[in-house]
């Protein structure tokens, strides 16, 4: 909301400059997002008396006048009705500037010199030509000539642009902001006379300013749905003449972000901006049968709204109707047919209370977020309708000669009893950590129109009974009053404290601790951590060959994604990492080893709570290209299956998981001959492999890529606390063993067989694979280093030979192995 500074100061005389006021308001919760100096760029426009006027010699309707600006006499040609001898007006002499950079020059009108121009409000405020029926500005009789326009009108002003939180509906009118500012400055608030008479914003709500006026019999009103429209006030004004608003009112509306139209409409907007209560003006003569019915929309109903657009009215939209059909969308926008025009003579001012949620939903459905709707949906003062209608009617009466008809057309189903809340000083201290006296609380609350009853002061447990003005729809309970006291005291005034009681903190969940250790391990192995979007596309999954047969090809979709690129929840980390690899390849990065730890999602199964998707944590790893450049010492080190497998080995070592098998051939997206399922303790915890060439082609990646995923939840469930074995006093013994096996025997099986068969074996390391002569074709030679760790007695050569024979016997039987001599 935009608050013009001079307008604000009409209600409270603030002791601050706009900057200071903006700061004070912001620190009290009325957030001033921006302070703007709004300048029109009007210069040298001054008041002038029209000394004499004669008809233009040749041009009918035009007049030639002599104007006195005090400093000079100017001859000016004008056809305006107000251009008459004796009137005081505004003149823009040659050299003067109007908005939009318009510079005035002397010119000839049919052979008569015109030294400048006399201006109308539209020219002064927008630099545009007069509107239909618009006269030049006529100043009060006593105005001296030569007074600059900027001294006569609020042309240039500071504007505070407020960014209000949704609970601050009481600041949706400038008076509301003024009340906050007045409280902060401890200055009195000056209400317009009608509002003061109606006790607007008082602790018990507003009253009818004309309580004794008779009800208005001219209009019939029917509120068949009081939940949606519980209160409706219609105020009739007769004998309205078409007029434009006074310059200052137009300018204030402009500063507040509204376009002036005509006096009646401007007044409804002006009073809405002033009080926060939206108003609408109908041309009363266009309302059929003088009858207003506020009801829900019927299927197929349409309305041409004020903006000229014909709108289909969604179901459950509350409408203002007459017997012929809709004439307005309640709380959102009026209809074109009943709009106030230059011919309007009778005006019905609508001042109503609509259900916030109903307005909100309709406004969302219609995508029509009008100033009125934005106010109604936040919840307004349910008592202010008559006072505000009266204020508008009085303004129209005083400015356009209209005659407000005493009384209202009114229906009211609301029974507003102001809330009474007990505020205990103990609660204030308990929440804020600072003692604030009951007296201070009372002062603060009374300054913003709460009523505080003193009779409940108690020395032991002091507390005050607070009556909440009905306009303060944000105040529900004691804590809301604590906030009210706190924000007016200043949030930064309570000092700083420490949490009492030493409590051990940090990561206590062993699983989370493991994750951090895994992160460190991956970093130490050269992995760069990535964080990728968990919203991906179905195409990302399809490119990896995860189709509808695969659970990973059936992701959880978003109902209303922003784009198809981010339309489903990821079912794996690899899709995101592969995209990272791809974009880095396109940037010319020669190689990368990247990883990510994050959640993956699968559709809810029947047992899950609340229909929530299954959420598990996964580690994804991807590598390609040169990981370590070739140096004079060797290399390069390339990404590939065995590099990745080595990393996984370290990771599983870290977790103390040693019962791990790599079962050949994982599914898509992996190369069938260069991939494996990773099984720990007999259950699959992940997959590893080079990407399938078909995937690489789909992904448009020109180099081999290796990938792996691990189920973190699966792995962490296998982590068990481990004891230790005291180191043996005996020296370990090393022996080498080389065997020749047929090519189809997996090396891993040979290792496993040795490990299972050998006694006192500490480790088995494969250090050579040889496929050339003398190894026969179709065979390979595998060379192992066996490290024995005797525990109780030194191993003799006989013991070692015996073990070697035992191992060979097993290998001959299970692996078709022969000893390589």
């Amino acid at each position, binding site marked *: 909301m935009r608050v013009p500074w001079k307008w604000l100061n009409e209600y409270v005389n603030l002791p601050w400059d706009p900057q200071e006021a903006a700061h004070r308001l912001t620190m009290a919760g009325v957030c001033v997002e921006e302070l703007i100096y709004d300048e029109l760029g009007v210069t040298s426009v001054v008041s002038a008396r029209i000394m004499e006027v004669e008809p233009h010699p040749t041009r009918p309707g035009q007049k030639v006048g002599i104007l006195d600006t005090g400093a000079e006499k100017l001859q000016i040609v004008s056809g305006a009705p107000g251009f008459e001898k004796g009137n005081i007006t505004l003149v823009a002499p040659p050299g003067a500037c109007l908005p939009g950079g318009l510079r005035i020059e002397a010119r000839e009108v049919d052979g008569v010199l015109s030294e400048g121009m006399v201006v109308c409000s539209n020219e002064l405020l927008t630099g545009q030509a007069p509107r239909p029926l618009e006269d030049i500005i006529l100043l009060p009789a006593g105005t001296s000539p030569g007074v600059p326009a900027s001294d006569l009108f609020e042309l240039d002003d500071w504007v505070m642009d407020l960014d209000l939180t949704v609970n601050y509906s009481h600041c949706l009118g400038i008076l509301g902001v003024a009340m906050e500012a007045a409280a902060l400055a401890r200055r009195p608030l000056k209400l317009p006379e009608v509002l003061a008479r109606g006790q607007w914003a008082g602790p018990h709500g507003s009253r009818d300013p004309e309580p004794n006026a008779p009800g208005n019999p001219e209009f019939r009103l029917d509120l068949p749905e009081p939940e949606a429209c519980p209160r409706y006030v219609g105020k009739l004004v007769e004998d309205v003449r078409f007029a434009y608003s006074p310059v200052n009112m137009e300018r204030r509306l402009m500063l507040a972000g509204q376009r002036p139209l005509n006096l009646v409409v401007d007044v409804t907007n002006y009073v809405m901006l002033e009080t926060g209560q939206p108003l609408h003006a109908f041309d009363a003569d266009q309302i059929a049968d003088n009858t207003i019915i506020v009801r829900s929309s019927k299927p197929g109903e349409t309305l041409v709204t004020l903006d000229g657009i014909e709108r289909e009215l969604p179901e459950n939209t509350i409408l203002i109707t007459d017997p012929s059909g809709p004439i307005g969308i309640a709380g959102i926008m009026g209809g074109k047919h009943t709009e106030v025009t230059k011919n309007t003579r009778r005006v019905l001012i609508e001042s109503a209370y609509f259900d916030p949620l109903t307005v909100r939903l309709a406004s969302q459905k219609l995508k029509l977020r009008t100033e009125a709707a934005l106010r109604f949906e936040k919840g307004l003062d349910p008592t202010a309708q008559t006072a505000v209608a009266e204020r508008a009617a009085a303004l129209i009466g005083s400015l356009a000669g209209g005659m407000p008809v005493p009384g209202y057309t009114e229906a009211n189903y609301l029974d507003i009893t102001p809330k009474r809340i007990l505020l205990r000083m103990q609660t204030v201290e*308990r*929440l804020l950590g600072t003692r604030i006296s009951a007296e201070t609380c009372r002062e603060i609350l009374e300054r913003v129109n709460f009523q505080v009853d003193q009779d409940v002061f108690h020395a032991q447990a002091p507390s005050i009974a607070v009556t909440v003005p009905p306009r303060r729809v944000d105040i529900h309970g004691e*804590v809301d009053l604590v906030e009210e006291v706190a924000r007016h005291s200043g949030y930064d005034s309570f000092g700083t404290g420490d949490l*009492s009681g030493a409590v051990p903190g940090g990561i206590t969940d062993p699983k989370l601790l493991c994750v951090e250790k895994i992160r460190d391990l991956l970093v130490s192995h*050269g992995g760069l951590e990535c964080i990728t979007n*968990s919203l991906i596309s179905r195409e990302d999954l399809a490119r990896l060959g995860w189709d509808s047969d695969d659970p990973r090809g059936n992701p959880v979709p978003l109902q209303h994604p922003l784009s198809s690129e981010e339309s489903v929840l990821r079912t794996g980390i690899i899709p995101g990492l592969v995209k990272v690899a791809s974009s880095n390849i396109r940037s010319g990065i020669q190689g990368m080893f990247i990883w990510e730890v994050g959640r993956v999602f699968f559709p809810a199964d029947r047992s899950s709570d609340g*229909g929530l998707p299954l959420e598990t944590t996964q580690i994804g790893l991807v590598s390609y290209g040169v990981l370590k450049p070739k*140096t004079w010492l060797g290399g390069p080190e390339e990404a590939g299956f065995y590099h990745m497998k080595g990393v996984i080995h370290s990771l599983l070592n870290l977790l103390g998981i040693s019962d791990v098998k790599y079962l050949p051939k994982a599914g898509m997206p992996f190369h069938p001959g260069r991939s494996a399922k990773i099984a720990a303790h007999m259950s699959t915890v992940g997959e590893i492999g080079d990407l399938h060439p078909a995937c690489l082609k789909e992904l448009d990646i020109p180099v081999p890529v290796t990938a792996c995923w691990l189920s973190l939840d699966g792995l962490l469930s296998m982590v068990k606390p481990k004891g230790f074995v005291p180191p043996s006093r005996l020296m370990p013994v090393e022996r080498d063993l080389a065997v020749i096996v047929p090519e189809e025997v997996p090396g891993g099986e040979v290792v496993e067989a040795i490990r299972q068969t050998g006694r006192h074996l500490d480790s088995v390391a494969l250090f050579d694979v040889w496929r050339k002569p003398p190894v026969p074709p179709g065979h390979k030679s595998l060379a192992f280093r066996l490290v024995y760790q005797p525990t109780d007695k030194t191993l003799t050569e006989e013991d070692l030979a015996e073990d070697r024979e035992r191992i060979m016997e097993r290998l001959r039987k299970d692996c078709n192995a022969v000893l390589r001599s």
Partner: protein
Amino acid sequence: MQESCASGMDHDLRDLAELERLILQQISESSTIDELEGVRIRYLGRKGEISALLKHIGNLAPEQRPVFGAAVNALRDKVTQMIAARKAELDREALEQSLARDTIDVSLPGEVFELGGLHPLTKALREITSILSSMGFTVYESREAETDDMNFVKLNVPKGHPARDMQETFYLTGTTLLRTHTSPGQIRGMLALEGKLPVRFIVPGRVYRRDQTDASHHPVFFQVEGLAIDADVTFKQLRGVISALMNRFFGQDVKIRLRPSYFPFTEPSCEVDISCVFCKGEGCSVCGNSGYLEVAGAGMVHPQVLINGGYDPEEVSGFAFGFGLDRLAMLKYGIDDIRLLYGNDKRFLSQFRGL
């Protein structure tokens, strides 16, 4: 006979002097350990000349023995000593040669170890976790997919509440969604503690909002939620914890201010502003010339939220805070575009490998 004997001994003594000269010359001329060892064996070995002379003493007349014996022993000692000295000299030379031979070019580069690195968001989160850990906060991880009830209703945001506009939501179904903030973690965390006190944990993690991606928005980003509940937790303590966090994360000179704001699940509520880390509060484009940066939302836990978490607002009070991890990391590292965080360009990530 006597004379001849005497003259014979004189002769032997003269020979001894000659022998000594010869041996010493040979020692000094030995250029290797092996040569020196040859000299030693030749004279001091069991069959060496000096050993023979010692045996020869027995053949001398008894009166000649002491003189001659003493001379030979002296010779033996001297030779032994000289050989040892020469050996030490040769050892030293050999060592020096081997040192020279084994000298390497230390200017050549060493083995390359490619350092991996944590993502800047992880780095920032670790720092924040460590700071808050020191104040007794533990880490609680909550779900990313949530129910409407947990994400909104339990946090005082019923259907139709205008506060729902503050957060554009990705719905999965009519009742499930992607959490728009880490705040539902407050409720889940409280319920998990089953009324135990004190409550002091943080909930870090991803949150989701229907925001078009630009330099400061990404539909997925990270928040860290904090919650402390006990018999006497106050707004004053909230300020203390937030100040300590910001001062340790950004530096001691950062000033804190708390500005009244609105969150349905806290009351009183505030925005946490810190003095701009770029202009030190002077005003710059980053802080919109205000000198302050908005970094977090916070407040005292709303009584209804305490009740929803299984705590009695008449017995306990609490504070909660929540901030955008992305924003804090971006401010700390001077990153001006959030897309860099999710683009994962190696040249970007590599710069965060150090401390």
